[in-house]
C-alpha cells in the first residue's frame, strides 16, 4: 500500500544535478532511511518532499494527493533539521506549541498536547526553558516533539542524531524507533551513518551521486550488497579480484590457485574478471594447516566484544573479525588456517556511478 510515492524525481542546480531518477514508494507506518555519503543528495531529496526545494521534474504523491507543487506550509509534514532549527526566542513549550497555534488549536487543547509531546520525549520539566539553556540531546528531543505534536502524516528527519555524542546517539536511536512505533508515523530519515540506518529502519535506500543504487531491508543490504561501493559503505569487507573459470549456476571463479564456488551469471565468459566479497566475520581462523588457505596474523586490534585481525594470505591481506568468546586470542606473527562457507561469498557488480 503506497502512502508516499516519488516518481522520477529530479533536481538540477544550474548545471549540477543533485538528484536524478529517484523513484520510491513508502508504505504507511514504514521507517525508511536514505543512506549515502555526504553530498549524494539526501538532504535535497528530503527538502523536495518537504517542499522547501522545488522539484525540477517528477511527481510526489502523498496519500492519494499530488503534492508535487504544494507549498511547504500546506503539506503538514513534520520536519526535524540537522541543526534542530529551534526558535531561539521561544521557550520549549512555545516551540512545541507553534505548529498547533498555526492550526488554530484551542489554548486548552494546545496545553494538553504540548504536555503529551514533551512527556513522550521526557522533557516535561523543561517546558519553560529557552533552547540555549538545553543540552544538545535535549534540543534534539524538543525538535522531535515540535515535529510530532502536529500529528504529521510523515515525519522527515535530516541526520537527526549526527550532532550528538556516540553514547547519546545510540540511546536516541532506539528511543526514536520506539516513539515512531508507538505513534505509527511514516518516517523518512536521512543519514550517512550505516549503523544508524540499519539499527532502526524497515528499509534502507542507498544513494550515490544523486541516484538510488539499492533499496532493501537492512539485513539484505548488508548480506547482499549489489556493488563494490555499497559493500564498502555498509560495513567492512574483503574484496577479492577473481577470474571466471566456469559461468552459470554452480559456477566457479579462481584467484591464484584457489577456487571459489559462486553463482555466476551465464553470460560471463571464462577468464573474465569478477569482484567477489566476503565479510570479515564470515572468516573462521583455525590451526595452521587446516582450512582453505593459510596465513600469518599481521596485526590485531581489540574492540571489546570482538577481535579484529589483519591476516597476510596468498589472496592478499584479509580482514577477520572474531567474537571475543573469552578464549586466548591469536598472537601477531602466528600462522593460522582460514576457512569459510561457500554461501558467504558474494558476487559484486561493478560500480555504476563514479563516486
Amino acid at each position: 500500500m503506497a502512502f508516499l510515492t516519488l516518481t522520477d524525481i529530479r533536481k538540477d542546480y544550474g548545471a549540477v544535478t543533485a538528484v536524478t531518477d529517484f523513484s520510491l514508494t513508502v508504505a504507511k507506518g514504514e521507517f525508511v532511511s536514505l543512506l549515502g555519503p555526504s553530498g549524494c543528495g539526501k538532504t535535497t531529496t528530503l527538502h523536495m518532499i518537504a517542499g522547501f526545494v522545488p522539484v525540477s521534474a517528477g511527481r510526489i504523491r502523498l496519500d492519494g494527493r499530488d503534492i508535487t507543487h504544494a507549498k511547504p506550509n500546506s503539506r503538514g509534514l513534520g520536519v526535524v533539521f540537522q541543526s534542530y532549527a529551534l526558535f531561539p526566542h521561544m521557550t520549549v513549550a512555545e516551540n512545541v506549541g507553534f505548529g498547533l497555534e498555526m492550526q488554530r488549536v484551542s489554548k486548552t487543547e494546545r496545553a494538553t498536547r504540548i504536555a503529551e509531546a514533551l512527556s513522550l520525549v521526557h522533557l516535561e520539566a523543561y517546558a519553560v526553558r529557552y533552547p540555549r539553556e538545553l543540552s544538545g540531546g535535549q534540543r534534539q528531543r524538543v525538535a522531535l516533539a515540535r515535529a510530532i505534536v502536529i500529528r504529521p502524516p510523515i515525519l522527515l528527519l535530516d541526520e537527526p542524531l549526527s550532532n550528538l555524542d556516540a553514547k547519546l546517539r545510540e540511546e536516541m536511536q532506539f528511543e526514536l524507533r520506539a516513539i515512531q512505533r508507538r505513534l505509527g508515523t511514516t518516517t523518512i530519515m536521512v543519514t550517512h551513518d550505516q549503523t544508524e540506518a540499519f539499527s532502526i529502519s524497515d528499509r534502507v535506500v542507498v544513494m550515490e551521486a544523486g541516484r538510488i543504487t539499492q533499496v532493501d531491508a537492512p539485513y539484505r543490504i548488508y548480506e547482499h550488497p549489489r556493488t563494490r561501493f555499497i559493500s564498502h559503505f555498509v560495513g567492512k569487507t574483503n574484496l577479492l579480484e577473481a577470474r571466471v573459470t566456469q559461468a552459470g549456476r554452480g559456477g566457479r571463479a579462481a584467484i591464484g590457485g584457489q577456487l571459489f564456488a559462486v553463482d555466476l551469471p551465464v553470460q560471463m565468459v571464462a577468464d573474465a574478471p569478477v569482484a567477489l566479497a566476503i565479510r570479515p566475520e564470515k572468516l573462521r581462523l583455525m590451526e595452521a594447516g587446516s582450512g582453505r588457505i593459510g596465513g600469518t596474523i599481521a596485526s590485531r586490534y581489540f574492540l571489546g566484544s570482538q577481535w579484529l585481525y589483519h591476516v597476510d594470505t596468498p589472496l592478499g591481506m584479509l580482514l577477520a573479525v572474531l567474537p571475543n568468546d573469552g578464549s586466548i586470542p591469536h598472537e601477531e606473527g602466528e600462522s593460522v588456517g582460514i576457512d569459510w562457507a561457500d554461501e558467504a561469498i558474494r558476487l559484486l557488480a561493478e560500480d555504476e556511478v563514479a563516486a
Partner: protein
Amino acid sequence: MSGPGATPIARWAPYAMSGPAFLLFATLLLVPLLLTAILSFSQFDHHSGIKAGVTLQHYAVVITDEFYHEIFLRTLRLSAVTTLICVAVGAPEAYILSRMSGRWRAVCLLVVLAPLLISVVVRAFGWSMLLGREGLVNQLLELAGIGRQRLLYTESAVIVGLVHIMMPFMIIPVWTSLQKLDRTTEQAALSLGASPVTVFRRIVVPQVLPGILSGSLIVFGLSASAFAIPGLLGGRRIKTVATLIYDEYLHELNWPLGAAIAVILLIANLLIMLGYNRLMERRYRRALG
C-alpha cells in the same frame, strides 16, 4: 595576556596602544562637551554678553517657557516618527535584500547605501526642489487633479528628509543581524504551517531584534540632533532643538542659553535611549542572550 602574572610591559601595552585613540576622543568629544557644560552655567546679558558668575537661569528658562517645551516635543515627535518609519520600512527592506540572489543584491545594496556618499545638504536641497511650490511632486499632484499642496516647510517634509537620510543606519545593523539568522528556523516554521508573513513577524523579527534595536537607537539619536534637514526642509516655522541651538548661538548670540539647550538635549537623548535599551533588553535577554 594581561593576567596577574603578566610582565609590566604586557600589562601597560593595551593602555599605551589605545592611548592615541583616547587622546583623540578626549580632545574632540570630552573637552568640547565639558566647555559647553561650563558655558551653560555662565551669566549672560544682551548688552555686555557673557559675564563672570554662575547661574541656573538658562535652565530655568528652558524648563519653564512653553516656547521651548513645544520645540522639544516637536523634536521628540519627529525623531520618534522617523524611527518608526525606518523600522517599518528598513527591516523588511533588509530582509528582502538578504533574500535576493547574488548580483541583484549587490546592485540593490548599492542603491540603498549610495546616498551615504552624498552630502546631507545636497540631499536636503534635492528634497526641497522636489517638494517646492513648483516642484515635481506638486506638478504631478496638479496633473492628477488634486491641485497644489503646501509640502515644503512642514513636519512631513522634515520626516521625509530624515527617513531618507537615516534609512541606511537602520538597514545596516538589521542586515548584520540577518546574516547570523539560521535560515532553517524559517523552513521549520513553514513546515509547521506558518504563512510567509507569520514567519517574518514571529520568527525573523524577534531574532533580528538586536539589530532593529541598535538601528533605532542610531536613527533616533541622529534624528533628534539633526540640523541640516530640519533647517532646510522645515524652514523658520518648523523649529527643532538643533536649529534652535543654532539660532541662540548665531542670531541671539546668547551662547550660554544655547549651551544649556544643548546639554538638556543631550541628557534627554541619553535618558530616552537608555530607557528604550533597558526595556528591550529586559524583555528579550533570556531568549537572545
